[in-house]
């Protein structure tokens, strides 16, 4: 409702400014929540893809690297005076151990894909609007919000709507969040919050760009694009690596041992 002339006379300039700043902050908070949602969504999608990739392809690479390490170790054993062969065997063992620790042991259960429901997105948006750490200047409250935001991100990645709802209802507003001490002080707080929100928006943009430039995103895009054309790229990758595993196995069994490459490979 528009203020009447009498009201206008009683509204102080700082209160008018405060109203404008609050309006601006509200719009920015909405934008922040939306951007955080997009960022969380991208991270969750990539994280789920990473899990699937490591489960299906990473485990194959890990097995291949183990065979390669065994091959290199046998070659080094056959040439005890060859420093390079010994070094290559050590390097191959390190690589195999690294691959194993990254890919882990293949779990019996297939990792799930990530798909956010409308409700999940709505809850995340509300959480981001309500408890985002950049919406407070109070150190204690900020730490609490950071912890909750981390939990919210994890819950979003898991698609855990119940947890998000719990975070939202369980959050107690800190005293800092309560307005007080007059419009001047509030104006300062609103300006500071606005500045913090703007800073965070820039950060989100940078984080998103980094994710979009990552190898993981490139790989995910390639897989997705191929799927739209009816190809299962992960399956093709597995087949290729399994072929290499078979070659490595047969070479290890080969008594000649020094046969370096499979002919016609």
């Amino acid at each position: 409702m528009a203020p009447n002339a009498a009201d206008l006379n009683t509204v102080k300039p700082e209160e008018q400014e405060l109203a404008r700043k609050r309006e601006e902050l509200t719009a920015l908070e909405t934008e922040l929540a939306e951007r955080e949602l997009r960022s969380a969504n991208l991270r969750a999608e990539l994280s789920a893809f990473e899990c699937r990739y490591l489960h299906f392809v990473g485990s194959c690479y890990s097995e291949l690297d183990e065979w390669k390490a065994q091959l290199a170790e046998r070659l080094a054993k056959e040439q005890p005076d060859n420093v390079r062969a010994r070094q290559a065997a050590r390097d191959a063992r390190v690589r195999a151990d690294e691959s194993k620790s990254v890919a882990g042991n293949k779990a019996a259960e297939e990792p799930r894909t990530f798909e956010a429901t409308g409700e999940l997105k709505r809850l995340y948006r509300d959480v981001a609007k309500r408890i985002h750490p950049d919406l407070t200047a109070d150190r204690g409250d900020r730490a609490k919000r950071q912890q909750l935001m981390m939990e919210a991100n994890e819950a979003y990645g898991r698609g855990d709507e119940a947890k998000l709802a719990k975070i939202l209802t369980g959050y107690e507003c800190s005293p800092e969040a309560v307005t007080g001490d007059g419009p001047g002080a509030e104006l300062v707080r609103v300006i500071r919050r606005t500045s913090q929100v703007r800073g965070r928006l820039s950060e989100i943009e940078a984080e998103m760009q980094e994710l979009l430039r990552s190898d993981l995103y490139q790989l995910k895009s390639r897989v997705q694009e191929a799927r739209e054309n009816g190809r299962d790229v992960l399956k093709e990758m597995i087949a290729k690596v399994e072929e290499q595993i078979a070659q490595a196995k047969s070479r290890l069994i080969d008594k000649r041992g020094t046969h370096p490459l499979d002919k016609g490979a």
Partner: protein
Amino acid sequence: MMKTHEKPVQKIVHAPAQSLAVRSAALVSRGLRDLARDSNWLVKKVFAGRASHLAISGTGQVCGITSETSKGAAHLVLYDIESTAPELALAVPKQSHACPADSPARFAWSPTSRYMAAAWEGWQLTIHLFDMHGKAFLGEFGEYKNFPKFLVWSETGKYFGVTAPAGKKVALWLWKAARHGMPISGASMSRVGAPHGIEPQSFGEGFAEEGAFLGYGRCAFSPDETSLATVAEIQGEWADDLIVIFDVPTLRKRDLLQVQGHITDLTWAPDNQQIIYCAAGQAYRLPLARMEFETLPFGAELCACHPHLPLCVCFSAWLKNSAKGRLFLVDLNDLAILDEYPAEGVVDLRWNLDGSKAYAITQDGLAYIYDPPLI
């Protein structure tokens, strides 16, 4: 009176970056790379324009002379085959004479690629040493009168050799590397002239006579660092070069073999028992026990043996019936050719430190990376 709620201005401290786990990065980029692979060779443009005297390191760095940037003046530049790092110019303080990019230059990378030795007409008449970790000029050694033909490090970096056109006496110098500080410095520990019975042609006396010894050219230390094989270059279009095997570090001549034609490259097999060399576009094998060359069933101008497997990567600029060049692998056990790939204009070849990849480069900046999944 308006009172602000005076709290100390807090610097915004953001939550820890919510980036994805980087531990999987190696497996992810490996998958991405394998996805694009349709052969064991990858081709990559490393630099634009042209560069000359290119030399590849065991870590995939390439140095060369170019005049493509820096106001057209020729300068020493460093590229990286593996990364997208921008090219880096290397300079020697107070020594930049203007000279064209195709003026003589020689480079040699230390085995770990930590050091790079260089000689260039644009500098003083000495070998210049760079620390490639700090990308810094370390110092100089080995003053010369005739521009060097070849610089080479031994397998573990223990020795460093330089060949040059025959002067009145010396044509091959050998240094022993220091463990600390500047790896090569001071005077050489051994030096040697023309092989016994071959008359040297003094450099600077005008045209050499047909059949005269021009000096030593390409050379390579055996992997066990007990021998040095070098090419004794003989004047004349139809003349035949010699391969001379010296003991290291005494530089006592042990063997000498006359080959057919002029040698363009030579490399030791990892067993220390045979040398693969290329002469007049043909590849040969020289088993040291017999000291008789064996013509191999393929042509090549460049060759590099694997550091510990019986494999050799070769480049041939001309393939019979096609006039096209190719890169290929040779299994030294049965001389079978593997993983052929069309290639033109390759000027240097090298295996990486652990022998898991091989690199080749052209003057136009095209790099060929041999990256088989199983090696």
